[in-house]
């Protein structure tokens, strides 16, 4: 199915209605499998004990935190370049989801770090970059909330999203530089020991489950956004019709 076929919101709604139950079922299955693997097959870490299992929630969320911004950037190009009518719907409904995944990555990260660092938060380079990412998500959401007219807000948010996409590597680099400047030995080493397959498989299953969760929620949110815009244009028509009376 080509993207252009989805340009018609009615066709998109029909597709969403058909696909959503299957996606929801697949998400539930993937989570069931992933959680089973995590709880019953992965060993506890000899140092961290059971807390290491937070990783299976934390890492997929952190991946999605960045992945959703990529989705929003592609949608923003769609808004600005191809003027695809669903692109800004996609960008708008992805923003709160991205913010939620980023927030979960931060919360699980700080819960995971608590026994290791003795405190809920350290200004570690990775955590700090993710925090800045969360702030940028919240900025985009605030922009959407400030302007009532979706098409105007859409273009402004698309520009902001793309500027953010260009800036994210720069932010990441400067935060790394800032952090090493102050703290030569970071608490969380990037390299670490090679990941054992017994851990890698459940991690990948959990990652797939979270991606499916995102796709399901995103489709549902896009459907809601399309319906919300229809309500809005019905209001406008109602005001217009009353004008003639």
């Amino acid at each position: 199915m080509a993207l252009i076929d989805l340009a018609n919101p009615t066709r998109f709604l029909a597709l969403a209605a058909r696909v959503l139950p299957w996606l929801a079922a697949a998400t539930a299955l993937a989570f069931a499998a992933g959680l089973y693997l995590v709880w019953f097959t992965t060993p506890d870490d000899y140092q961290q004990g059971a807390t290491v299992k937070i990783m299976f929630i934390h890492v997929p969320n952190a991946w999605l935190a960045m992945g959703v911004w990529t989705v929003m950037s592609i949608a923003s190009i769609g808004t600005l370049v191809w003027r695809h009518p669903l692109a800004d719907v996609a960008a708008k409904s992805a923003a709160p989801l991205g913010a939620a995944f980023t927030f979960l990555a931060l919360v699980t990260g700080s819960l995971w770090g608590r026994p290791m660092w003795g405190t809920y938060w350290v200004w570690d380079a990775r955590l700090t970059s993710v925090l800045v990412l969360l702030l940028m998500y919240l900025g985009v959401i605030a922009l959407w909330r400030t302007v009532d007219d979706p098409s105007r807000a859409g273009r402004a948010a698309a520009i902001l999203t793309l500027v953010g996409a260009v800036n994210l590597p720069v932010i990441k680099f400067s935060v790394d530089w800032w952090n090493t400047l102050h703290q030569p030995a970071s608490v969380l080493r990037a390299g670490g020991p090679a990941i054992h397959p017994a851990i890698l498989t459940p991690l990948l299953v959990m990652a797939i489950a979270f991606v499916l969760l995102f796709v399901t929620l995103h489709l549902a949110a896009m459907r809601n956004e399309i319906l919300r815009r229809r309500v809005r244009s019905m209001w406008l028509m109602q005001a217009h019709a009353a004008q003639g009376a």
Partner: protein
Amino acid sequence: MALVGPNGSGKSSLLRLIAGLLRPSAGWIELQGGDAERSVPEQAHYLGHLDALKPSLTVAENLRFWTRYLGEQTAALDEPLAATGLGGLADLPAAYLSAGQRRRLSLARLIAVPRPIWLLDEPTSALDAGGQGRLADLMREHLATGGMLIAATHGPLGIDAGELRLGGAA
């Protein structure tokens, strides 16, 4: 009473003076036969160029706020909305209204809270023919119930009124 005169002759300023929004540099404003307990502005409605509406509130919320603020606890909103042709739009955010509809919503305030003096600044602006007819009806009704009305205007008001000409050669 219709206030007429060229631009800048002081029609709006006179209305704002009566409404207590400008302070007279000399002299005073007195109302004969009004409620002695209340000041002139408290007995007057002022309808200026601005609509005093919040775009993110609905039509009904805007009107309910002003009726409650201006002292009418439990005014029915349906009647003034219907009288100004806004019935059925009560739950619409005011942002979706056209300029004429916003004007009518400000007029609904005048009907919802009864006050003896109406101070209207260009009341017919932005109103279509139907709206102007409705406005004339409302003004006639207001005068018939013993109300007083001072309107600054360039065009005809649609009612019989005395004229006060300000400034100019006329």
